[in-house]
């Protein structure tokens, strides 16, 4: 006989079903069925069809959440929100709780299956614990887990921190797994582990969005451009779902949402490079730093990395610079953030910026590793989308928008159509701590191709580098006045190697790093008696220091590498026409009072070192 509570249960069941049918919620099983299919197929067309089917069954209210779940994330990385990354131990505990198994049993099954998701599925099949659910009097013809509930719970798990969060996370996971079917449990666990293994690329989701909301794959470029301009696929999907595909045709960048960076092709021949970009080109110093996309809205500043991570917290000093030096209220700029030597202001290698990743004491690190910002583009300004404008126009806007200072300025550049001039600037950049140059087309079609790698920008980097393993002994031949803290002292020394054949001292590098305050005091005293008003006749230099000195003192120096230089005279022309050998990032080790200037490292020895250590440079992903 049907009792009253059964009638009520049936009523609730059909009520819930009706809500699904009206499209307000989406059952998880739709997504999980798609995941199961995706595991078995490899054809791109079939995969796209499956995703199309999922999106067609997705209520527009949750299309963003579904797109994120398809991407295997909860939100875009750049939001800086915590990732799920639930550890294996937590998952084992949660699976044990949800399936009524012991942790040993879960571990044993895991050892056999090698997959925690599969383990959860197997144990759910074998045991159906269900907690108190099956004893509940008002429970209800449950219609299963919804995508929204799963997403919201996963978000809660990710965002739960602090005291007691461990147990709460386990309980939340166990709660989901208790309600899940075996198949659902498998994917929930894999999602929590960050291993959804769907083989689903962004490109497929872009195709599917074009088909579902545009009616054809032909709309893909529009969807893709929108995604490149606002790197948040969930919010793009939501926008299209609510306002139609036309709404994104002229989508503008939005401050706070990163733009996918334009990338450069690579070539190693100056003639070919200039020919590719159409002759006349803007040649920029390619700094060895971190590419930062800087967003400003009034006093709020965000900095995104090349990989679109929010790195604002690493650079509170840059945030201040932006507030002071960017005159627009709303702007998106691009620049290279470069570590500098706090004493000399010279550029330091990219690796130094790693210290900035620290989450605490960042204000201490700022003092130890100060940075400079070299801006090279502007993508948005006061409501104007500049990504569709040619580079010449963007540079004009950039110049107007930025109040330049020594630490926050437009990157060094030249405009040239001469390959030799390009080469000379390239060597200058290498010697001065750069990675090479980026050559940019200047013609009217040279727009900002967000997210694309193309021939409008070409990077010209070193093919080879000669790492310095041993120290060298160099002779002081001149000095430059110090700045800032080093004011009134000789802060940087001009160093030379000895050329036996000509009995001259040929310049190799400027040395300003590695000195203690005491060293600097001593240098000023040491140089006083040997200062000259003119270059010493045995010194061969193309550089004019503030003072010349008699070659007398020898210092032991170590650098990152030996490099070619258009400025220094050591071995000039021996490796490349018009280029000598120099030391990149030289550092003072100690004085060598036991050595006479003629005992210093010779130019021939440096040439031999350069050739011996020459190694192919591995391609880095930075443009």
């Amino acid at each position, binding site marked *: 006989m049907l009792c009253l509570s059964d009638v009520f249960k049936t009523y609730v069941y059909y009520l819930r079903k009706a809500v699904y049918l009206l499209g307000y919620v989406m059952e998880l099983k739709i997504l999980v069925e798609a995941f199961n299919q995706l595991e078995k197929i490899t054809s791109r067309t079939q995969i796209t069809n499956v995703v199309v089917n999922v999106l067609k069954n997705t209520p527009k209210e949750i299309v963003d959440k579904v797109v994120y779940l398809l991407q295997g994330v909860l939100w875009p990385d750049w939001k800086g929100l915590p990732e799920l990354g639930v550890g294996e131990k937590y998952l084992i505990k949660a699976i044990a709780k949800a399936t*009524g198994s012991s942790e040993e049993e879960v571990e044993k099954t895991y050892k056999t299956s090698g997959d925690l998701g599969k383990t959860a599925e197997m144990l759910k099949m074998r045991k159906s614990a269900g907690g108190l659910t099956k004893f509940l009097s008002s429970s209800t013809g449950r219609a299963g887990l919804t995508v929204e509930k799963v997403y919201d719970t996963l978000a809660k798990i990710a965002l739960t921190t602090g005291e007691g969060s461990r*147990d709460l996370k386990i309980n939340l996971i166990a709660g989901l797994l208790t309600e899940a079917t075996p198949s659902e449990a498998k994917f929930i666990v894999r999602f929590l582990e960050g291993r959804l293994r769907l083989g689903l690329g962004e490109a497929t989701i872009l195709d599917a969005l074009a088909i579902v909301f545009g009616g054809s794959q032909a709309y893909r470029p529009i969807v893709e451009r929108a995604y490149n301009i606002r790197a948040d696929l969930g919010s793009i999907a939501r926008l299209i779902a609510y306002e139609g595909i036309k709404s994104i045709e002229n989508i503008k960048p939005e401050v706070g949402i990163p733009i996918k960076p334009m990338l450069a092709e690579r070539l190693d021949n100056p003639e070919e490079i200039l020919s590719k970009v159409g002759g006349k080109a803007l040649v920029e110093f390619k700094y060895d730093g971190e590419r930062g996309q800087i967003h400003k809205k009034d006093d709020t500043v965000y900095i995104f990395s090349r990989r679109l991570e929010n790195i604002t917290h690493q650079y509170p000093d840059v945030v201040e610079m932006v507030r002071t030096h960017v005159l627009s209220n709303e702007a998106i700029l691009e620049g290279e953030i470069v570590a500098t030597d706090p004493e000399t202001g010279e550029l330091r290698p990219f690796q130094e910026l790693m210290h900035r990743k620290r989450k605490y004491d960042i204000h201490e690190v700022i003092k130890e590793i100060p940075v400079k910002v070299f801006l090279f583009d502007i993508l948005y300004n006061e409501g104007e989308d500049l990504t569709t404008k040619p580079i010449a126009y963007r540079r004009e806007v950039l110049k107007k928008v930025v109040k330049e200072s020594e630490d926050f300025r437009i990157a060094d550049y030249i405009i040239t159509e001469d390959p030799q001039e390009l080469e000379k600037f390239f060597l200058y950049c290498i010697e001065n701590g750069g990675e090479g140059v980026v050559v940019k087309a200047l013609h009217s079609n040279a727009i900002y191709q967000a997210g694309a790698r193309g021939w409008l920008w070409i990077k010209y980097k070193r093919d080879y580098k000669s790492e310095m393993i041993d120290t060298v002994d160099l002779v002081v031949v001149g000095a430059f006045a110090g700045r800032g803290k080093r004011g009134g002292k000789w802060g940087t020394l001009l160093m030379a190697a000895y050329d036996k054949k000509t009995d001259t001292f040929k310049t190799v590098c400027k040395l300003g790093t590695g000195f203690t305050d005491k060293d600097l005091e001593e240098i000023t005293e040491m140089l006083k008696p040997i200062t000259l008003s003119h270059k010493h006749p045995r010194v061969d230099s193309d550089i004019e220091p503030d003072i010349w000195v008699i070659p007398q003192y020898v210092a032991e120096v170590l650098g990152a590498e030996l490099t070619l230089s258009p400025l220094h005279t050591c071995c000039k022309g021996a490796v490349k026409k018009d280029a000598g050998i120099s030391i990149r990032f030289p550092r003072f080790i100690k004085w060598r009072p036991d050595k006479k200037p003629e005992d210093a490292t010779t130019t021939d020895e440096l040439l031999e070192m350069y050739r011996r250590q020459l190694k192919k440079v591995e391609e880095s992903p930075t443009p």
Partner: protein
Amino acid sequence: MLDLSFTSPDASIWRYVVSSAGKFVEVGLMILRPEELIIKAMDPSRTALIEFIMPKESFEEYNVSEERTIQLNFEELGKVLRSAEKDDRLTVELEAATIKIGFERRGIVRTFTLPLHTEAGLEEIPELNIEYANMFKVRGEIFYDALSSIEDMGDVLKIGGDKNVLKLSSVSDLGEAEVELSLEKGVLEEAEVGNPGFTSSYTMEFFTYVKRPIKAAEYVILRVDTDLPAFLELTYPQGSKLKYYVAPRTE
């Protein structure tokens, strides 16, 4: 505007209940009715359900004219109640957006004001209505001691019984610990065993969570049967009751 208020003569029991619930669930409900106040929560894995019922009479003052349900954050409330001691008077005042909690000890009143969480989207916590064949009544302190003596042995609590005897045991690789409580030796106050030889297993952790309320209880009434949830009913001197269900493990 003051919506409702109440004053409880013993703040410590509130502390025990809130901290116990906070161990397995973040939020729960406080249901205020003219005749009683209920705190209710179910853990997300749906393994345990806790329900603390205080009749109007257990309060010194109780001014609730119509039913209202609010969401309680056990972590926040637990922090406030951490300093509550036996014999502290607890006063709670609810306004539109805040809950004000005051303790009075030897004439000194400390007051904490917390924001009230939104009442929108409160998930109803269902009722359990299970018929049991077996019932044991034991003093709170004795049940507490019994649990304490075996809890460290293993993760699983086995409950079994025969006529007039309740057996609690914990088994692991380390060995086995068992406690026997019997009517004959006067440890059990009452026993009704309709299904002799019954046995059921539970996750020990869920019993550990409520040890303090068990210790503070006058009596523990345990209803249990093979593969059914364990149901503990704890009674307190002022007429309050704590009902606690734990789902069985399926081996």
